[in-house]
């Protein structure tokens, strides 16, 4: 009896391990299968068509695309299991910084591909890793921009002009409000949407190197973000009556249907808005944060960077795919479909919607997202959301400082 039982159990476990063996795939038919992990659900179709093209050129390599929801959490769990995908297409944010410091990504420093990328973006991702890891573990690929999107028809109706300074911006908001229209459509039920304005203000007022200074004890939110908080509070006055109750998806629809003149969002919202109203004419401009037009920079971050796992068995094949992605033709195709911008030199987004921020890319008047350098555990977006409800500036700024320090001390 006992023998039979053990045999049964053995058979079961054996079967299970066989199943597991199958799913991990491999090179048994002469083909190399690589896993491409992407954190963007929006780019699945684009990636699929690019992969098809690549596979046609390289018949012995197969690429499996994996783009799960909550991608960063999934990636971190897989890191815990030492099971990183071969190629990763992820955002240049704090998670990338952690991966870089953990030493699990291939270091691209000095290879030829890095020379095709605009140096300011290489610098941006290097600063994410910081001095502890020192190296370029990801190749900036596509970039995004934080902008003020406006409804062209309404813009003309109110007789407005693209503002170049903060005062002009406020004056146009005031004009719209006086005419009984809604100036800005806020979607603050989703806390992250508050960070769009916050980042534009923070980057231009408190400076790009705030996080480094803060960690060195040379800067604090109380000292450097006072003006940012004031301006945030000013902006919310120009919202609609339920700023806190509307979520991002509903906001896109409302803006597409002419519920407001301005919309504070990134370039990624534009395909969504056009989906809701294909006829709509949109324009964008960088938020003019200060009164000196020379100093107002566009906030642009690395939306997608390509990284390769240090431990992959197929480094050569993985690099082949990365090289394919980094060619000018592929990069152009990617940004055209995704309405994004390219980190690769000489590849520009030509879509007329982005006319208002094109100059920033060409002259390099760009700066990075400050919150990508905040410690991930502090939950800045919820703190900002809370501030916009309670408007208690001193307490809020002190809390930002204390939460930052608390997380760093853990």
């Amino acid at each position, binding site marked *: *009896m*006992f023998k039979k*039982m053990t045999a049964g*159990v053995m058979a079961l476990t054996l079967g299970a391990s066989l199943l597991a063996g199958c799913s991990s795939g491999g090179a048994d038919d002469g083909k190399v299968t690589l896993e491409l992990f992407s954190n963007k659900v929006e780019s699945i179709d684009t990636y699929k068509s690019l992969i098809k093209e690549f596979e046609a050129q390289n018949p012995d390599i197969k690429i499996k695309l994996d783009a799960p929801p909550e991608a*960063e*959490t999934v990636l*971190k*769990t897989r*890191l*815990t299991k030492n099971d990183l995908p071969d190629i990763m297409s992820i955002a240049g944010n704090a998670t990338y910084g*952690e991966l870089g410091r*953990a*030493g*699990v990504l291939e270091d691209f420093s000095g290879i030829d591909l890095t020379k095709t990328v605009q140096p300011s973006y290489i610098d941006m991702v290097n600063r994410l890793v910081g001095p502890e890891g020192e190296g370029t573990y990801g190749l900036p690929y596509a970039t995004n921009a934080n902008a003020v999107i406006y409804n062209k028809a309404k813009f003309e109706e109110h007789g407005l002009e693209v503002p170049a300074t903060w005062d002009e911006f406020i004056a146009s908001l005031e004009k719209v409000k006086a005419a009984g229209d809604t100036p800005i459509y806020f979607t*603050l*039920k*989703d*806390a992250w949407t508050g960070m769009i304005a916050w980042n534009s203000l923070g980057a231009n007022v408190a400076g790009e190197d705030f996080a480094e200074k803060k960690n060195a004890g040379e800067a604090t939110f109380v000292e450097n973000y006072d003006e940012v908080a004031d301006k945030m509070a000013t902006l919310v006055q120009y919202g609609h*009556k*339920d*700023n*806190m*109750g*509307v*979520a991002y998806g*509903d906001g896109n629809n409302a803006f597409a249907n002419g519920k407001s003149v301005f919309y504070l969002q990134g370039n990624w919202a534009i395909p969504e808005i056009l989906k809701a109203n294909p006829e709509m004419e949109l324009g964008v401009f960088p938020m003019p944060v200060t009164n000196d037009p020379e100093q107002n920079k566009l906030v642009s971050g690395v939306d997608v960077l390509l990284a390769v796992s240090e431990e992959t068995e197929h480094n050569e094949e993985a690099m082949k795919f990365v090289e394919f992605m980094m060619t000018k033709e592929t990069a152009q195709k990617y940004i055209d479909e995704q309405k994004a911008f390219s980190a690769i030199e000489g590849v520009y987004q030509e879509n007329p919607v982005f006319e208002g921020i094109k100059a920033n890319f060409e002259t390099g008047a760009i700066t990075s997202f400050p919150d990508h350098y905040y*410690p*991930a*555990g*502090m*939950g800045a977006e*919820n*703190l900002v*959301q*809370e*501030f916009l*409800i*309670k408007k208690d500036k001193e307490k809020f700024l002190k809390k930002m400082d204390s*939460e930052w320090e*608390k*997380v760093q*001390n*853990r």
Partner: protein
Amino acid sequence: MKKKNSVFLIITIPAFLLFFIFHSYPALQGIFYSFTDWKGYGDWNFVGLKNYLNVFKDGRAGDAYLFTFKFAIVSTILVNIISLLVAIGLNSKIKFHKTLRAIYFLPYILSILIVGFIFNFIFAHFLPQIGDAFGWEFLTRNILGNPDLAWIGIVIVAVWQAVSFNTILYLAGLVTISEDLYEAASIDGAGVWTKFWKITFPLIAPFFTINMVLSLKNFLMVFDQIVALTGGGPGKSTESISLLIYRGGFEGGEFAYQSANAVIYFIVIIVFSIIQLKFLNKREVEN
């Protein structure tokens, strides 16, 4: 006889192994890591009780505890009152009582996330429209966007769904009560109210206990409803402990710290369940 025993023992082994590998072992690992500074990957060092001390100093964890308990206590009370009423109604001889039972059980079959998204729509579009139409100012804004009211929205959704399961348990209790008791009581001239307090309520006391303990425990671990409705916002006003542990642990790279938080929370839930069981069991015995 002896042989039979060993067979039973063998039968339990697979279940024990599975339970140990997938449940006990990870839990023990979590307790172990709560004494380290592990981020979820890479190197780690022992830090002793530092994580535990930090939890007690963490205002954010404190707020999460306050919210979770406020939510859990209110929801537990509401769920038990409503489901007991529904169960009594369904247990009486009304028309279609079988169909009605099925309908009342429906919310339990739906996934919490789906229910959450449906209610999200109701709160964001449907209720404000009603508010606009009737000129009720308080309804014209999404209550999930108001830090003082958002928790009520979550209570409504959680209670709406939880009532179905507790109703089934109460129904199971009600059918165990013999009709004779009610007949005897009627002959003695007892009214509906007296019958409920003197017969029904004492006799379903064990079911009352189990419902109270289960629902408090479930509501203390509230997570899905919040993810679907508010994501912890506005601000941090609806951040429950489970959400804080998940967010901080997996997204914030504070694996060890939130493990310590989880261990503390585990102990808190056990203590509360034991207190409840002791208190409510005593009541059962007295009757």
